[in-house]
């Protein structure tokens, strides 16, 4: 068992998250996919922290969680606002701005 496996897992999760942003239409799901990407990054941090033998990576992951929490607050507030105006959480419906 090699710690590198965690890195592969992290990369795959990141990929899945990124693709999810492109394919899903519900703004909340899209946002969850972004959270998945952040989590994938965290997994890499923790793994590298282990490989490097210091705790810096873990600290970064911790910060990431805090920041992600803030992002979630703001993001969900925006999503709710737009849902209230439009009665739709689909990102495809938000395409007034194009020309």
């Amino acid at each position: 068992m090699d710690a590198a496996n965690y890195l592969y897992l992290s990369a795959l999760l990141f990929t899945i998250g990124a693709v999810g942003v492109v394919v899903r239409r519900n703004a909340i799901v899209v946002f969850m996919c972004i959270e998945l990407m952040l989590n994938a990054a965290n997994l890499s941090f923790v793994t590298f922290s282990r490989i490097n033998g210091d705790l810096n990576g873990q600290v970064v992951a911790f910060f990431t969680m805090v920041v992600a929490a803030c992002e979630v607050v703001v993001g969900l507030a925006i999503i709710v606002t737009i849902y209230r105006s439009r009665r739709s959480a689909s990102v495809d419906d938000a395409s007034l701005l194009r020309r």
Partner: protein
Amino acid sequence: MNEVALQVGQTAAPEALLFWILAPLTLIAALGMLLVKKAVHSAILMAFVMIALAIFYIAQGAPFLGIVQIVVYTGAVMMLFLFILMLVGVDSSDSLTETIRGLRPIAITAAVGFGGLMVSLLSRATLGRSAVGVEAANSDGNVEGIAQLLFSTYVWPFEVVSALLITAALGAMVLAHHHRIQERPTQRQLSIDRFRKDSLATAAGLPAPGVFARHNAVDVPALLPDGSPAPASINASLKARGDVLDSSRFELGTVDTSADEEK
């Protein structure tokens, strides 16, 4: 994994077992997030992924993070997600058919290419130094170790993050906080208003929207006896959103009586 450079040394067999059981499940759950229709299912799967990650953290010598992941992420953040999902409509579901032309192939290419290339690249990576393992760093305890860093080396970003939290709170308030415009009228007051105000025209209630014969949706104004639409029959916020169908379509024109004449 052959000559892979990121040799960390062989870890204990239980960890390997854990990994090989949990990692595929995590991946399946993550993939599931993309494939299920209902947002709420996605959220559940997401929670699963997070918990799995928390387990990995703990397995990798980051118990503090693991706990935070479960408490903060899964416990708080995911709940926030679910909460909002409830608000938006828990049954809301996506159709998975792609409507933007050309996006599906791009997504598939990206998924395959990105994932494949990442794995391929990582397999080629070398560090040129041996892996250390986190045990030494955790010698004083994981939480203490992190605290050491957090409150000395990273005290500045730690402080700054507080500003970020304030920003988030302020932002949420700006977007969500309603001012009470006026005292909400009590039931009693409403009732009095209905009969004692300027006229009795609406004493029996406002006309209901819709025209049975032609169109009975809420965004269609009712027709008055003279055939003209009744503006009062439509909810004001629908009007404000511009979601009202053009009422002129429903005005009574000349009645088509050709069928009658034939008889």
